[in-house]
């Protein structure tokens, strides 16, 4: 069937027809990928991490930031493999520590846009402390948490975002640990911009990411993107497309949520999408400029 269709429309282009080099030129997004890198990515077929990557590139592109001005910092995990595919300054660090490395980098280079890309385990299990401290200090870093509700890379152990009662390889009888409310935690810790969306709402992600990167202060974007390979399989949630549909169906916008009567709010089980916080506080590096001024002014 398909061969026929191919010929009929001449629209579906296989590698033979578009040289690799040309493909990278066929969109702004693709042009920011690393031509030297092997594609497709290492992610499972249908994994939403790649969708977040697309959104991130579009956000950076939208802001008109030069590739050289961007530093991507990641820890370890499926999500953390994202930076290597993009033509920025990319630093793949140790599990959980992306924000701590990013802190050093940002202080050394306040002019650069430093973006940390983390899985939920990376950001919130082993990396939880750096997460709250980087927010508190208000480093002008954009933290992206791809929340796939599980540890993907290591094969499906429960994470601090696995919903209650769901199964994981280390929760064969169902998870009993309540998940973190990631956005609320970030707000309590001091983040200046906090938003959440899903990979189904990819263009919303574009927008939140662009706002987050533009923000002068610590910003967090939580991107829901279920790991169908582990979380989905262990909980019989179906294929990537089924889980994508559940992201579509099981979220509610913050605007809609805010309009709900209190009882319904309390019983709401959908994920709330939207921007939850956008406040102004002088970022760490600007504060530090004052320290330097005081030190050099001789005041002690």
């Amino acid at each position, binding site marked *: 069937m398909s061969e026929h269709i191919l010929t009929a429309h001449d*629209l*579906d282009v296989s590698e033979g027809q*578009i040289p690799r080099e040309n493909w990278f030129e*066929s969109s702004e997004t693709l042009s920011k990928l690393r031509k030297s890198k092997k*594609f497709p990515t290492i992610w499972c077929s249908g994994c939403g991490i790649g969708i977040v990557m*697309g959104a991130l590139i579009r956000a950076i592109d939208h802001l008109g930031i030069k590739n050289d001005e961007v530093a991507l910092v990641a820890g370890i995990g499926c999500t953390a493999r994202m930076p290597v595919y993009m033509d920025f300054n990319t630093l793949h660090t140790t599990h959980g520590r992306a924000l701590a490395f990013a802190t050093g980098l940002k202080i050394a280079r306040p002019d650069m846009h430093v973006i940390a890309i983390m899985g939920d385990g990376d950001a919130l299990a082993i990396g939880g402390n750096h997460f709250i401290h980087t927010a508190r200090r208000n480093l002008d870093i954009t933290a992206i948490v791809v929340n796939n509700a599980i540890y993907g890379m290591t094969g499906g152990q429960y994470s601090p975002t696995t919903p209650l009662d769901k199964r994981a390889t280390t929760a064969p009888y169902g998870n009993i640990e309540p998940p973190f409310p990631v956005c609320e935690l970030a*707000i309590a810790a001091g983040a200046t911009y906090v938003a959440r969306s899903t990979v189904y709402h990819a*263009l919303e992600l574009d927008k939140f990411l662009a706002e987050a990167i533009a923000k002068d202060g610590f910003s967090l974007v939580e991107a829901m993107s279920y790991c169908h390979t582990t979380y989905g399989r262990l909980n019989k949630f179906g294929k990537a497309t089924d889980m994508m549909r559940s992201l579509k169906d099981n979220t509610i916008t913050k605007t809609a949520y805010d309009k709900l009567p209190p009882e319904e709010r309390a019983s709401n089980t959908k994920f709330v999408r939207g*921007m939850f916080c956008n406040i102004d506080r002088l970022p760490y590096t600007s504060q530090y400029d004052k320290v330097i001024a005081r030190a050099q002014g001789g005041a002690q």
Partner: protein
Amino acid sequence: MIEATTVEQPNIANSPTAQPARKGPRGQVIIYAKWCKGCQICVEFCPMGVLAFAQDLDRAVVVAAEKCTACHFCDTHCPDLAIVVKRFD
């Protein structure tokens, strides 16, 4: 779950279903076969049924190019950046 803040909800720029199909294709859908992993996200969510899954090739193919409204759902949601939609202007 999340407490109210003073900030307004952003608009979602492009709701895929919000754009009704007009006559003739509005865009060209290009799939880079080598990168497509056959996840079928584009196939399942294209509101116009432009795309289909070719079992034998284990990847997506364009089956109804003329229906494309250039809504960009497929290229913004392809996890492998294996689709580009070019809007006809």
